[in-house]
């Protein structure tokens, strides 16, 4: 019985219990995917406050979508679809409101103690390199880093597995170039 069936069965007998169950399901889901979704938000948003706002939007969207989960796709695919869709909306709206994306450069930890400290305290060079990737490559790579298979990435993004492989190769090439550039 999937999440939705359990919730529907509960709702028939006790609506209050159903709400509690939904909350419980959500908390379980968050403990499983919360860290992944926080990393996903970080790949789209470098500003900590905006990142937290984006994570809140993702949480809310998943909460509202959860009763519609029918089990047609895996829960992981379902969650990542919603998260990426909300993150894209966030990026497009940021552009609409005239907020430019903060420019980033990949810091060389050997260049200065300050740079090294920033690097340690804030973000890894890998994350910075990922943020600099074009969005379609970034999506494929971050999903792969979350250990999704090509088939799952294809289901999340709605592109063919061949296309996933092509994007992955180009993303890896760009990352290697950027990480190698010192």
């Amino acid at each position, binding site marked *: 019985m999937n999440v939705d069936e359990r919730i529907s069965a509960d709702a028939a007998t006790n609506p209050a219990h159903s709400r509690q169950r939904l909350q419980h399901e959500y908390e379980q889901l968050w403990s499983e995917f919360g860290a992944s979704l926080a990393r996903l938000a970080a790949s789209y948003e470098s500003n900590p406050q905006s990142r937290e706002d984006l994570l809140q939007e993702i949480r809310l969207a998943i909460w509202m979508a959860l009763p519609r989960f029918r089990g047609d796709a895996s829960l992981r695919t*379902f969650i990542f679809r919603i998260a990426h869709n909300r993150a894209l909306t966030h990026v497009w709206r940021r552009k609409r409101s005239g907020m430019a994306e903060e420019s980033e450069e990949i810091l060389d930890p050997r260049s200065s103690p300050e740079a090294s400290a920033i690097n340690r305290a804030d973000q*890894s060079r890998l994350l910075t390199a990922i943020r600099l990737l074009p969005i379609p490559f970034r999506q494929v790579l971050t999903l792969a880093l979350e250990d999704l298979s090509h088939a799952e990435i294809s289901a999340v993004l709605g592109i063919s597995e061949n296309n996933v492989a092509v994007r992955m190769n180009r993303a890896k090439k760009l990352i290697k170039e950027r990480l190698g550039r010192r």
Partner: protein
Amino acid sequence: MTNHDAEIESWRAEWIAQEYAAGTPSDLRRKAVAQQRSLRIRHVLELFSGLILLGFSGVFAWKNPSAETYLWAAIVWLGTLIASAFSVRNWKSLWAANLKCVTEFTDHYRQRCAAELRAARFGLWFLAVQLAITVPWLTLDYLRKELTGRCLAVSLLVLALQTAGFIALFRNMRRRALQELESLREMQCEP
């Protein structure tokens, strides 16, 4: 099948090591309910203002039967019904779209932007038609001595202020929709 790729594996350790506070979702239900409630209130208010316009124009045409008032009421009804249908369609598809895959969601978002652009264009044309009817109508009433000079001046001033407000609104809608479409285009051109 997972990604057993040496490079991905080596980056994964670094990727997973990032630490962010995932937070606790305790007040989420309240937020979701509040957000849905505010959307519903906004939606009901939009529909209510549409009903007021429909009612007012209907009663006015009924009390002052003439070709002029029927034409005016018909234009008001048509405009209000189109605006309400647009609002209902936008509202209904707001949350459901999140469940689609990213490519479908992007298409849906593009269609919404295009619809917003069409709505802004329609709004500007509709405003121009209304002005083309209202200004000669008021002037004609003044020439027929059915309206005093002061009434005409006040009416034209109110009309000018309303027009300026609507033009600002539609231009803002258009600007936002174009910016979002540009972001979508940029994203598609990236690979």
